[in-house]
């Protein structure tokens, strides 16, 4: 896993990359995320928390996220709960109709945060 300690704009490892795009208020997640437990997801959680901070809106772009294991689902859910509790930032998640798991699992996030805007391309 490689991280940029100065800006923490990218967290990447074998088969995946998570990138914070400051200009567009967007975090892109791509590849297959199968890390071992919440501790291995910690750098990604930090990047997401950083993205949420001082923003009025944020988009998570998951359209290239092919695979997410249950620890990753838990990480994403934790983040959505924290966004819900941090009410000054509107959260939007963009998924893909082409990736089977997204149609199933992303809807659960709406149950955690009804104000979440979930769209599928």
């Amino acid at each position: 896993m490689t991280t940029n300690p100065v800006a923490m704009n990218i967290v990447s490892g074998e088969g995946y990359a998570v990138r914070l795009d400051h200009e567009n208020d967007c975090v892109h997640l791509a590849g297959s995320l199968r890390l071992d437990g919440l501790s291995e997801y910690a750098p990604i959680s930090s990047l997401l928390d950083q993205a949420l901070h001082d923003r009025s809106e944020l988009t998570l772009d998951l359209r290239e996220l092919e695979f997410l294991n249950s620890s990753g689902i838990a990480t994403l859910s934790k983040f959505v709960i924290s966004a819900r509790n941090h009410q000054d930032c509107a959260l939007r998640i963009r998924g893909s109709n082409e990736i089977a798991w997204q149609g199933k699992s992303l809807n659960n996030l709406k149950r955690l945060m009804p104000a979440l805007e979930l769209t599928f391309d």
Partner: protein
Amino acid sequence: MVEDYGEIYPLQHDRQAECLHLSFWPGSLPLQQRWRNNGLSADFLGDYVTTFFPLDDADPATRRRQNEIRGAVGFIANELLENAMKFHDERSLQPITVDMNLQKQVILLRETNAAAAAEVERLRGFVKQLQTSDPGELYVQQLEENALSESTAGMGFLTMINDYDADLAWRFEALADSGFRVTTQVTIRI
């Protein structure tokens, strides 16, 4: 002593069924190196079943179905393998095994590993909770609780049930030396 939660079905070995069997001893390699194999094996199982759900270019529903089955098998197999790696008792002489049995109306995925008594006690508690709760409510409750802790307990199983409409069953068998042999069976309808 054999303790079952739900019904454990026999694997079907005949002309009506396809079967893949994997078995390995995790102690032979460091966990970190093994972990990569979980994804490779799970993807392989997911890709393998697509052979039996061929595409028809004239019918877009076939692509969706193939995608869904690949996704379901890939996710479930990956979770079973990750659990096996996390909870297997490396002192045991038992291997970890994974079977995928493709039958006419169901795909059956089965994983076995050895586990220490304390681990089995925790899993038994979760299984009992599952039997007496609504899985949808338990899923959201677990997510809310996880948000306040460092645990992701049961999330994989709850995702299988809620998102993939899977049926789960477990078997615990006490081993002669110590600990248990744990079988987790996941069935999805096709």
